[in-house]
């Protein structure tokens, strides 16, 4: 049972060949590029969703921040589609791997910080000291604020990894419990099955919400620094 829980998170290999690259590239096949003015239904639905999301997310930025629109929109599409595809049976979710989430979080966060330090040095350094702090507290507060700045990429990556992994693990455990309970007591199995259904609905929501939160936080860091 122990070995069984973790094997679904290992890197998938087929006959010794790692196919994790194919699995990461697969969601791009589900988003065909719109070639015409009026597209087919799939492309029109995706176009509408992306326009809705981009307006909601990029209105708060000024002109300089809005140059990041393409990056943030592709980020939310990638994380959302990868998380949702991971809810299919037997599939592998790349966002459960901390390595990949760190690879997404650190460059984006570092990009926003570097941009802030380069273009508006005084203003971005001023974020280290909130307004109206008493004079003796200043050194300690600067240290605390700089630690909280350095922990931002770690928090981004670990938040995404932990949420998705925990959801998948819960589904595995409760599904296994339902199967085991069928022979013992049907009513308990039914209750557990209802819990499983509610959990799956939650997982769908979590998949989308995590994508949104990741992208929103990156955009917030961007807003601070432009």
């Amino acid at each position, binding site marked *: 049972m122990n070995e*069984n829980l973790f094997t679904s998170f290992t890197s998938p*290999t087929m006959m010794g060949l790692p196919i994790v690259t194919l699995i990461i590239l697969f969601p791009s096949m589900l988003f065909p590029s719109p070639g015409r003015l009026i597209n087919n239904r799939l492309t029109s639905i995706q176009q509408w969703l992306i326009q809705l999301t981009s307006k909601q997310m990029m209105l708060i930025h000024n002109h300089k921040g809005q140059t990041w629109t393409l990056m943030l929109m592709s980020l939310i599409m990638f994380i959302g589609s990868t998380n949702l595809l991971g809810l299919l049976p037997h599939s*592998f979710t790349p966002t459960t791997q901390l390595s990949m989430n760190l690879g997404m979080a650190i460059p984006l966060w570092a990009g926003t910080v570097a941009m802030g330090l380069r273009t508006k040095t005084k203003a971005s350094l001023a974020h280290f000291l909130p307004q109206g702090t008493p004079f003796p507290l200043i050194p300690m507060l600067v240290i605390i604020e700089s630690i909280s700045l350095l922990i931002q990429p770690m928090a981004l990556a670990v938040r995404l990894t932990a949420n998705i992994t925990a959801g998948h693990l819960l589904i595995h455990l409760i599904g296994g419990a339902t199967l085991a309970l069928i022979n013992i007591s049907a009513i308990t199995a039914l209750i557990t099955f209802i819990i499983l259904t509610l959990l799956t609905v939650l997982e769908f929501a979590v998949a989308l919400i995590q994508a949104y939160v990741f992208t929103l936080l990156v955009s917030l860091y961007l807003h601070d620094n432009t």
Partner: protein
Amino acid sequence: MASVVPLKEKKLMDVKLGELPSWILMRDFTPKGIAGAFQRDYYRYYNKYVNVKKGGVAGISMVLAAYVLFNYCPCYKELKHERLRKYH
């Protein structure tokens, strides 16, 4: 069995059974040829099921079903032990 149409340009369904080995050997197995084959298949599927005026849910759900089945293969080794058999 001399064919009127040269062998190179026939599609698979038109090739006679005796000509099959030479037809297979004649196909383009370079990486560019294989990539071309994948691209042609992608557009054939896309134009038949998705890129239509009133496309339904079938176009994308067939892709997702194939994805699930494709992901079953690496897991088979571990899932073999969970079958409902008396002796494993």
